[in-house]
């Protein structure tokens, strides 16, 4: 029994407390993260990132695009997003970037240098007016231009909720196809950051996933963020692009310098396996990667298939269903609370599609059904130990 997982709540809490006393949750995004039971954890050690030229050459997504050998530059996710914005503005003279504080680079520095390079007519600050930002962007998009809006934190997107849900998502439908907000992309930093508390940590993807007409995308890495963002900006539907803010600096890859797009609505199989399918997206994938490593070490012969959803809406049912038909087991994990979280939709659809193939109930490891806490972040987040326990329970069912 590894010390990160224990059978009872009591034991688990005890173990977890002693573990976090020295390590802390956010350390898995820290280069100095200590190994857990011999497994090197965290983004810095992740095999999911292409940090070397060989890594880039072996990157399946880049191979599919035929750019695995193109020239690359070391970038973190913040820089690759900046690069995507730069390319979109270079290739589309109608593209504009706006939001709170973006002209001096934005609070996370994702829009740095854009105002200098493209001028104040194409990259500019807005007042603090989220509903206004979204509505303005819809107008820009409806008039045929490319609107790239930033909502400073995903937690601030709710004043813009009406505009996004009622106006952006439904414009094509309610005008019989005459108008649309297809040129609108709303970028917003989301998910936990280690200390964000109530209003700087939420994962609102499930709210938007309930809205036909929207596309919801969440990247996990610099290479992927660039390709998916360029794809989102050029996509003819309004896109909510939620960036796991904890990865802005912690996730570093050699990113192709060229202009490339990754397909939306398509999941990526990050690691093939035969005994259980594990589905996640965004920063949660690094937690799942480590949980899987521990499972495969503790239960020799067991292999887990890890799938990155990439696009939350419309989601890639086929890839997940094919995988579950092969493995017979499914665990889904996200930071958002469990009740009505996106894992619920996946579980419902897969239990329907794969009912006769399922060997165990579908497992979900999610944020607790509580507001996102300040002081209890590490007791809220679905961490390595909780994911390990759930995968194990599903395998041993």
């Amino acid at each position: 029994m590894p010390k990160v997982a224990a059978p009872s709540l009591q034991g688990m809490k005890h173990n977890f407390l002693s573990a976090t006393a020295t390590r802390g949750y956010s350390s898995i995004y820290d280069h100095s993260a200590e190994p857990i039971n011999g497994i090197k954890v965290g983004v810095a050690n992740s095999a999911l990132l292409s940090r070397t030229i060989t890594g880039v050459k072996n990157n399946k997504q880049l191979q599919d695009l035929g750019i695995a050998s193109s020239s690359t530059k070391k970038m973190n996710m913040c820089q690759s997003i900046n690069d995507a914005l730069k390319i979109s503005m270079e290739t589309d003279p109608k593209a504009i970037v706006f939001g709170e504080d973006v002209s001096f680079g934005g609070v996370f520095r994702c829009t740095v240098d854009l105002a200098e390079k493209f001028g104040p007519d194409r990259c500019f600050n807005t007042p603090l007016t989220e509903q206004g930002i979204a509505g303005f962007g819809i107008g820009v998009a409806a008039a045929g231009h490319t609107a790239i809006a930033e909502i400073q934190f995903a937690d601030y997107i709710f004043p813009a909720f009406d505009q996004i849900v009622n106006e952006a998502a439904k414009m094509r439908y309610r005008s019989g196809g005459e108008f649309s907000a297809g040129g609108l992309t709303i970028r917003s930093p989301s998910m936990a950051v280690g200390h964000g508390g109530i209003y700087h940590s939420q994962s609102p993807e499930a709210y938007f996933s309930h809205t036909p007409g929207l596309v919801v995308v969440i990247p996990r890495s610099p290479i992927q963020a660039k390709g998916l963002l360029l794809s989102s900006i050029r996509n003819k539907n309004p896109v909510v692009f939620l960036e796991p803010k904890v990865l802005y600096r912690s996730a570093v890859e050699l990113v192709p310098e060229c202009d490339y797009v990754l397909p939306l609505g398509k999941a990526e199989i990050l690691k093939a396996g035969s005994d259980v399918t594990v589905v996640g997206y965004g920063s949660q994938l690094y937690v799942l990667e480590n949980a899987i490593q521990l499972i495969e070490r503790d239960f020799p012969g067991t292999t887990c298939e890890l799938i990155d959803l990439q696009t939350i809406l419309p989601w890639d049912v086929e890839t997940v269903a094919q995988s579950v038909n092969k493995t017979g087991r499914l665990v889904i994990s996200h930071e958002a609370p469990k009740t009505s979280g996106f894992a619920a939709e996946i579980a419902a659809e897969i239990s329907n599609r794969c009912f006769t193939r399922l060997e165990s109930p579908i497992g979900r490891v999610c944020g607790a059904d509580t507001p996102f806490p300040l002081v209890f972040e590490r007791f809220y987040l679905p961490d390595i130990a909780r994911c390990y326990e759930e995968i194990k329970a599903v395998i041993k069912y």
Partner: protein
Amino acid sequence: MLRLGSKLRLASGANFFKGTLGGARFMSSDVNLVFKIATESYIGHRIEDLPATDIEMSKTEALDMYYKMQVVRRLEMAADAAYKAKMIRGFCHLCTGQEAIPVGIEAGITRKDSVITSYRCHGFTYVRGVSASKILAELMGRADGVSKGKGGSMHMFGPNFYGGNGIVGAQVPLGAGIAFTHKYNNDGACTIALYGDGAANQGQVFEAFNLAKLWDLPVVFVCENNKYGMGTSSARAAANTEYYTRGDVIPGIKVNGMDILAVREAIKFSKEFTTSGKGPIVLEMSTYRYGGHSMSDPGSTYRTRDEIQHMRSTSDPITGFKTRLLETSHVTEDELKALEKDAKKLIDASNVEAKASPEPNVSELFTDIYADTTSIPSMRGRVVSETHYY
């Protein structure tokens, strides 16, 4: 008397001056201080009368205001230091430079009046009667914090103090609602609803204005104009930067928010105005924050260091009030120094107290979500084994 007071203050924190405000202020032995402030301290919009420029108050009250400004500044300095020492996590917004507003407002109202403000709330939390140690403990995520450590910097509350609100502008319509209850109860009290120059551009601020004027609610809208909405200067964010005129048909007054005397007088005037059935009023208080928007903003990328230094040296609310107090010749330098020392002692002691407070129990993760836990037997945690049973 003040020296005796200093011991009491240390023992009972913020509560000491509650007593002095209620009683000692009217003691016959207390000296009355007279101040004259510049007529430019106020500019009106759709209003004939303006607050007084000849201001009288007891020496006890004046020294109380001075002391509280010192406490608020030192509280923010302690928060700054604790943040940099990684004792505080999360987002933290300091009001250094803006102390005249919370302290001046509290001096102009009573505890029956309500206050609701934005995320820059530490000063208001203190003047509304929450101890500095509870504020620091909240910042540090401790059990003795004002919100049990569950909120942090932006989420602090107190008696008739409705927070501490993190979403920009969201508190302003709440202020109208709170004012409605004052009117409904006919209790003669009003609501002070504060927001910043950045929040002034949020649509719901205008929705709140309309409701308040439509129903003549006893609410004083106060725009703390510190010149920058996060990193954007007000002129680059607002087509009309005369925030006191933005209530349209609602009368407004621009107030020198770096002068605590003007703030106190404008609030007294506005309370009288709005509780006498004349409806809402919009005050713009021009002020300045010395630090960045939050701890992650150095505050120097969108303005010059010279500008900050200039404001500190020419307009500091504490230094300015100190000069005025000394000019009365009823207050000595030593008296003020003693108060400064007291404020420092209070914050030092509060810091120790806050740090000694334990982290909250993990079960608190699941409390305060719904009112009636009896109909909700349990709440789901991350995995089934972590289900919390009430």
